[in-house]
């Protein structure tokens, strides 16, 4: 890892793109992808800012990211099941708030 700055700039770009898409996207799948990409940006920051220890990447930071990747896939899998189920029961995946607080 010779050029950490480059990776930090990439992480910044990914985070910003993800956030932008999360706000403007109307489709839930697209929003989930946005969250996943933001997660990758955070993982990059975690590993790169931990730096090198004895010439190799910080092992603890790597292990944390590995944990994070597995948690992310679990969360996404649940979210997808929820979205598919919502589509099945209501015929749409709109999150229109007027439908659900009784006003």
């Amino acid at each position, binding site marked *: 890892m010779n050029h950490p700055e480059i990776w930090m700039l990439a992480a910044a770009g990914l*985070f910003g793109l993800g956030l932008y898409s*999360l706000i403007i996207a109307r489709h*839930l799948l697209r*929003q*989930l992808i946005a*969250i996943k990409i*933001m*997660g990758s940006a*955070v993982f990059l*920051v*975690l590993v790169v*800012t*931990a*730096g090198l220890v004895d010439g190799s990447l910080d092992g*603890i*930071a790597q292990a*944390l990211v590995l*944990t*994070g990747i597995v*948690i992310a896939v*679990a*969360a996404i899998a*649940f*979210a997808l099941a*929820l*979205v598919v*189920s*919502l589509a099945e*029961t*209501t015929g749409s*995946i*709109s*999150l*229109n*708030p007027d*439908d*659900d*607080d*009784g*006003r």
Partner: protein
Amino acid sequence: MVAEALACLVLVPVVAACLALVLPGRWRWLAVAAGLLPLPLAMAWLTGELGREGLITVAVAGFEAPLGIVWRLDGLSAVLVWLNIIIALLVGLHAAAHYPADKLNGFRFWPLWLLLSGAMNALLLSADLFNLFVTLELVTLAAIGLLVVDRKPQAMRAAVRYLLLALLGSLFYLLGVALVYGQTGTLDLYQAAGVLQPDLLGHTALVLMTVGLLVKAAIFPLHGWLPAAHGNAPGPVSAVLSAMVVKVAVYLVWRLWLWLAGDWAIPAGLTMLGLLGALAIVYGSLQALVQQRVKMIVAYSTVAQLGYLMLLFPLLGLVAFQATSYHLLSHGLAKAAMFLAAANLLTRLGTDQLGDLRGADRRMPLDVFTLALAGVSILGLPPSGGFIAKWLMLQTALAQGGWLWVGVILVGGLLAAAYLFRVLAVLCARPVACPELPVSGKADQLTSLVALGLALAALAAGFVPAPVLKLLATAWPLGGAP
């Protein structure tokens, strides 16, 4: 023995969740009981030990920080673990009526319930910033899973929105953790507290983690997801969401600002957090005043009552800490009681539209009584836990000359009176216009009694505050009264 008792708080519910998934039929009840019943015993023993030691720490797997993860039980976490256990058991008793463990919906419900209570205990014990992230994710996924067990479309929409925001919040939190680790080389909150500098990076890390947690805590203006989720969840799930799940996120904000950054002296930040709390109190109460459904009123009441927890920051001091922690405890009990009572009305009368509930006190006197009793504590009328908490808050605010905060506490109380009396006035109105009650069985009596028990517990908290306040005082990190 300490390690055994702590392990019991976290691992026994998790093992029980596994067993509840593999055991056949009625054996699942056994797993559920085995997962929840030992918790108060372990915690009672730990509380005695805590009284002697003042602080309990255990290095999990035998590795001290910074290498390993440390569990740390102090007065504050002990009070919250007690609340968690009481909620898991009593609200669980209510849930047992609707989710038989040997039927399909109970088959999904109980493993999630057990994982949720184990995860919240793990969160309250953990002193490790990344381990807290993992426990937060477990809490979130289990809670949202519970939210959709009935598969109501409204609940599912609310769940999707809740999940998206909770995941976003986690990312902000984790980004802050990454910065802390990069700067300090440790993930232990108490080690990092000594090393992390209040410079640009330190402040940014603190703000990122705080924002992430405020989303999960639904503090104004990030509360948007809460009313629909808490108002449409199954009754027992609404109760645990409002009583515990959002509270643990506020608890973590406290930990960050008072323990991690306790000596940074950032008055602007503290005032800012207090202002968010004040806005939450006013906005949540006003919204509660105009809602048409009982459960939505109770949900917006949660938005408002969470605001009081943020008043700790501007009022900063031992008494304010005791007051807000006590508010957390008594609101947890009272709000759980309210949600259960509201759920009973909804289940048995088929509606919780305020307009259809005229004279509900004739049909279901016990549940209406419970709503009123729990309301006493939410309002902060004596004698109740809510009274102790708000009285102490007022005292510190007056002593500091913080007139804004005095005003907010008083206005919040008046608005709470307004929205609660509005509900009670309709419920006790004549002529009776609410639907006839189907014949009630034993399960219905049980669910009403559980709600009543929680409301009585919130009242009882008004009579014996001393031991709890003393326990809380041992945890206060910043020295004597202001």
